């Protein structure tokens, strides 16, 4: 059914077209309960066990708004520099699709709780792009469909579908950007940086798990192209199923090259929903939209309007934590980092880990050297995030302490960390099991030094003549004899003392 799409070379796309993006991010709040009923808001679970008459849309049931969810929505709006509505309503979005058993989704239509904001996002090289926020509104998540009978598990070709409504009614905030134009070749990067910044922000606000892999943060990417020199937006496509930060970037880039090829061949971009395929990095035409998107929105009669008093809004503003960009600025000052050092730290995704390591007793320089310089390489080699590497900030801080107390050399410390990463237990256990203690027993060291001096009498003579530089050869021999478990400086001091 699918033909391979023609793609235009990226450099040519940029030469001939200007991309325009629009990003819609859905974030599931991690409240205890659902948006309109007291069912538990939990990921997974046996199907249809977190459901009740309200979220199943049974006759006679009535919704009641979760106050905590409204609070979270307002805090998100404030953190995104939005205005908060003085009065707004929920609306019914009517459609027939079995993911909502009510045959409508309770959402907000033309009265979002938050609107007109912005978020500054930092690209990898430090350039800052301001993304304007159109609105953030409250709604509820849908149930999960399992399509049975199709070859791919997708909806096409399925014989029937199975529905689990555990997720139906989970509080959802939809955050919509204004059109993002003028970013040119960096558009895919801007898209990723925006979702990254938003994720960090939502995490700092502690309103969501923000797990893209579990669907608690989802991004739909709208992409269109306009020929260079024109200002009228082209026809856009909306790509769904973009489940990782990297996919956001890839999906936008793919759509740009695909649409450019369509336009260059004299064709027209079809306004449609497209589906991103993680394995191929391409998008394909998705479900055909409900006939002409006629949702017949109307104010939800079962829920009274929400009118956040200005006092309440200010009170919530007071609960905003230090936001990621403020924290970065503070950390840069406190740790005396250059812009480049801060960027490396942020790009490595190591800010929290380094801060926790510092809290556990290491200096910022020591902590950064481990996480940014050493462990980032390990994580890349294994294809995992730093935080999933299997070593904690507390463990790194203990390794650092062992080095500082002279019990480990830097070389031995790396071996200890390798052991921890390999699942051999706590740093102290690895030291014990691998026998990695620095040889600090003076008599043992003296014996090794004496043996080395005796083995190389000509070198020993030079040192006695004051040619201290010659001591290096003896240090090497002692280190070899102690299997690298001696402190080189101490060995050197000892050699010179023996020869004077």
């Amino acid at each position, binding site marked *: 059914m699918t033909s391979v799409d023609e793609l235009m070379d990226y450099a040519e796309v940029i030469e001939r077209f200007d991309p325009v993006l629009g990003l819609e991010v859905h974030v599931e709040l991690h409240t205890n309960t659902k948006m309109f009923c007291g069912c538990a808001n939990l990921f997974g679970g*046996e199907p249809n066990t977190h459901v009740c008459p309200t979220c199943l849309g049974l006759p006679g049931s009535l919704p009641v708004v979760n106050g905590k*969810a409204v609070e979270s929505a307002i805090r998100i709006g404030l953190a995104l520099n939005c205005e908060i509505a003085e009065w707004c309503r929920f609306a019914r979005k009517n459609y027939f699709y079995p993911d909502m058993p009510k045959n409508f989704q309770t959402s907000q239509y033309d009265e979002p709780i938050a609107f007109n904001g912005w978020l500054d996002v930092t690209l990898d090289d430090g350039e800052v792009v301001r993304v304007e926020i159109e609105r953030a509104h409250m709604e509820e998540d849908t149930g999960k469909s399992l399509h049975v009978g199709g070859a791919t598990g997708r909806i096409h070709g399925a014989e029937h579908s199975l529905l689990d409504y555990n997720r139906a009614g989970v509080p959802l905030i939809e955050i919509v950007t204004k059109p993002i134009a003028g970013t040119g070749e960096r558009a895919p990067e801007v898209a990723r940086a925006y979702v990254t910044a938003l994720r960090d922000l939502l995490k700092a606000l502690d309103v969501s798990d923000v797990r893209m892999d579990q669907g608690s943060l989802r991004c739909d990417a709208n992409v269109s192209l306009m020929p260079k020199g024109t200002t009228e937006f082209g026809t856009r496509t909306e790509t769904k199923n973009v489940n990782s930060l990297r996919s956001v970037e890839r999906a936008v880039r793919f759509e740009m090259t695909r649409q450019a090829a369509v336009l260059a061949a004299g064709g027209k971009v079809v306004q449609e929903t497209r589906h991103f395929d993680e394995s191929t990095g391409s998008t394909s035409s998705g*479900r055909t939209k409900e006939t002409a998107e006629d949702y017949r929105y109307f104010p939800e009669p079962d829920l009274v309007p929400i009118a956040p008093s200005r006092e309440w809004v200010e009170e919530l503003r007071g609960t905003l934590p230090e936001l990621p960009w403020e924290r970065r600025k503070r950390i840069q000052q406190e740790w005396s980092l250059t812009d480049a050092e801060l960027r490396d730290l942020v790009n490595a995704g190591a800010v929290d880990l380094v801060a926790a390591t510092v809290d556990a007793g290491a200096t910022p320089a020591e902590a950064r050297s481990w996480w940014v310089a050493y462990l980032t390489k390990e994580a890349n080699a294994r294809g995992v995030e730093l935080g999933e590497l299997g070593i904690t900030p507390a463990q790194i801080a203990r390794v650092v302490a062992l080095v500082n107390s002279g019990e480990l050399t830097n070389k031995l410390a790396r071996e200890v960390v390798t052991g921890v990463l390999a699942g051999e237990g706590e740093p102290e256990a690895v030291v014990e099991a691998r026998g990695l203690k620095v040889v600090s027993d003076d008599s043992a060291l003296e014996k090794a030094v004496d043996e080395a001096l005796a083995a190389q009498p000509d070198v020993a003579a030079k040192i006695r003549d004051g040619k201290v530089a010659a001591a290096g050869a003896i240090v090497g021999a002692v280190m070899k004899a102690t299997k690298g478990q001696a402190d080189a400086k101490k060995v050197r001091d000892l050699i010179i003392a023996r020869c004077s």
Partner: protein
Amino acid sequence: MPSISRDEVAHLARLARLAVTDDELDLFAGQLDVILQSVATVGDIATADIPPTSHAVPLTNVFREDVVRPSLGQQQALAGAPAAEDGRFRVPRILGEEA
């Protein structure tokens, strides 16, 4: 000039998944027109100082505490389902049924 056309009635019927015959379309279009025109007389009284009303009760901010309450069990949840499979509601295939 009727306030709702026959085509609009047909469109609404399709959206609501109602199978309406040609004869019924004529009948309902006429009936709905009468209803809409009757309701529209309310608009004659409304003036600029009367805001549109969506809710009859003068309440705002009715919230629930974020406290978990018991859910239905799976069996109970599925009790009224025409078909179920693996603890889930079973529904006919979704695409391809578009009118």
